């Protein structure tokens, strides 16, 4: 009889194979590097909890046909420790043969000992399944934001992502964007603008190494009533995982400071000149969200990126208004818990979730395993 059981090292080759075919949509075999990483991430995750484990669906003949990656994440609420588990990678092979495999994996995961079950990458099918399990979809955490910096370059980059040959349009886009930039000077805030207070040099941004991030993450999330219970060792591990996302471009980690050197926020994004940058994390002291966003856009503009995109956090939404940022929905952030009071904290944006408090820090999102 088929069963759900904990993921084990012996399952790695099959899970890596499914990852390539189902999620990466490629026929190329899984590399040793990918296999090693799957083992590292799901058998020895940064906040290892022996009771919160990744799961596999095993057919009656003993072959693995489904996987659900679980990442433990201790959280805290007013000094109280909560166990949270982030559902990362979820995939089923041969759906026609095992039509209930995905449902069984999700049900087994949600029946775990954690106080909170979370996901930030649920597609439409997964979202429907979570809903049926009485989970709560969080609209304010589920939106993607997009800030176009160079409109012509953005159009060319978007076209190139669909049709490779369209990359030849990029050289034509640059003079057009330069023209648009000159035309807009002296008028209302425009693409690649920097807010006046920043232009006066009130804020600056500097490169942040891992130790600086380690110091700032707890400080800049302290105002959220519910947040990860950051431990130096495990936060350091998450930062290390997030160092590289080769599919997105070079990694940028900057701290935004006032003139007197006080850190008011940080941003982490990946991207190269002419491309669309991916923002994995923005943190800001209360009231300084706009300044941090402005520094980030300015930094990306100076590096020649054509746009930035990232996941919304409710705490940033207000500051994003008026900064020519658009919003769209790509995947859903969802919470499942037996305690309605905890859901209210997510609904009201008082929980720090997504990005480093999710699964975006992991290399499976945006990195290559050549």
């Amino acid at each position: 009889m088929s069963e759900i059981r904990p993921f084990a090292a012996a399952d790695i080759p099959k899970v890596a194979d499914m990852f390539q075919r189902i999620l990466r949509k490629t026929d190329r075999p899984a590399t040793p590097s990918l296999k090693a990483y799957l083992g590292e991430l799901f058998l020895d995750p940064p906040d290892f909890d022996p009771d919160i484990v990744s799961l596999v669906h095993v057919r009656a003949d003993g072959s693995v046909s489904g996987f659900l990656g679980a990442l433990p994440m201790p959280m805290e609420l007013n000094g109280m420790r909560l166990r949270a588990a982030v559902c990362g990678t979820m995939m089923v092979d041969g759906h026609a043969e095992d039509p209930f495999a995905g449902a069984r994996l999700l049900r087994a995961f949600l029946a775990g000992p954690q106080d909170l079950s979370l996901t930030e990458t649920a597609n439409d099918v997964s979202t429907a399944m979570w809903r049926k399990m009485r989970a709560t979809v969080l609209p304010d955490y589920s939106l993607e934001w997009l800030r176009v910096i160079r409109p012509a370059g953005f159009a060319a980059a978007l076209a190139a992502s669909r049709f490779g040959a369209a990359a030849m349009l990029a050289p034509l886009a640059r003079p057009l964007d330069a023209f648009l930039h000159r035309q807009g000077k002296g008028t209302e805030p425009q693409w690649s603008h920097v807010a006046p207070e920043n232009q006066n040099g009130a804020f600056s941004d500097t490169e942040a190494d891992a130790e600086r991030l380690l110091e700032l993450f707890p400080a800049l999330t302290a105002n959220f009533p519910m947040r990860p219970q950051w431990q130096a060792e495990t936060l350091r591990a998450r930062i290390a995982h997030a160092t590289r996302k080769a599919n997105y471009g070079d990694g940028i980690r900057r701290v935004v400071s006032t003139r007197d050197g006080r850190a008011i926020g940080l941003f982490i994004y990946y991207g190269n000149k002419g491309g669309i940058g991916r923002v994995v994390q923005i943190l800001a002291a209360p009231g300084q969200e706009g300044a941090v966003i402005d520094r980030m856009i300015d930094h990306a503009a100076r590096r020649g990126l054509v746009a930035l995109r990232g996941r919304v956090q409710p705490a940033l939404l207000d500051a994003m208004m008026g900064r020519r940022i658009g919003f769209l929905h790509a995947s859903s952030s969802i919470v499942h818990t037996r305690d309605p009071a905890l859901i209210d904290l997510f609904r009201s944006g008082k929980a720090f979730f997504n990005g480093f408090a999710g699964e975006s820090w992991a290399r499976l999102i945006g990195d290559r395993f050549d």
Partner: protein
Amino acid sequence: MASSVETAIRAFIVENFLFGDESYKLTGETSLIDNDLIDSTGILELVTFLEERFSIRIADADIVPANLDSIARIDAFVNAKLGESAAA
């Protein structure tokens, strides 16, 4: 004659998977999977319904086509579970 369990199951399937279309030829043996009436999402809805409606606990290992692919199978499965509860 249909049991009250079977009647409740049929009503649930017609309402939720056929959107109230009672003209659909849904026999006791009609495969819910082969006829695309149920998928991973639907099965979660069905299991939740069965647990709440009949006060039974459905284990993960019970969620297989052999137990849940037709009204007759679901009926037999639920009655077996109810029998277990009564015997306990």
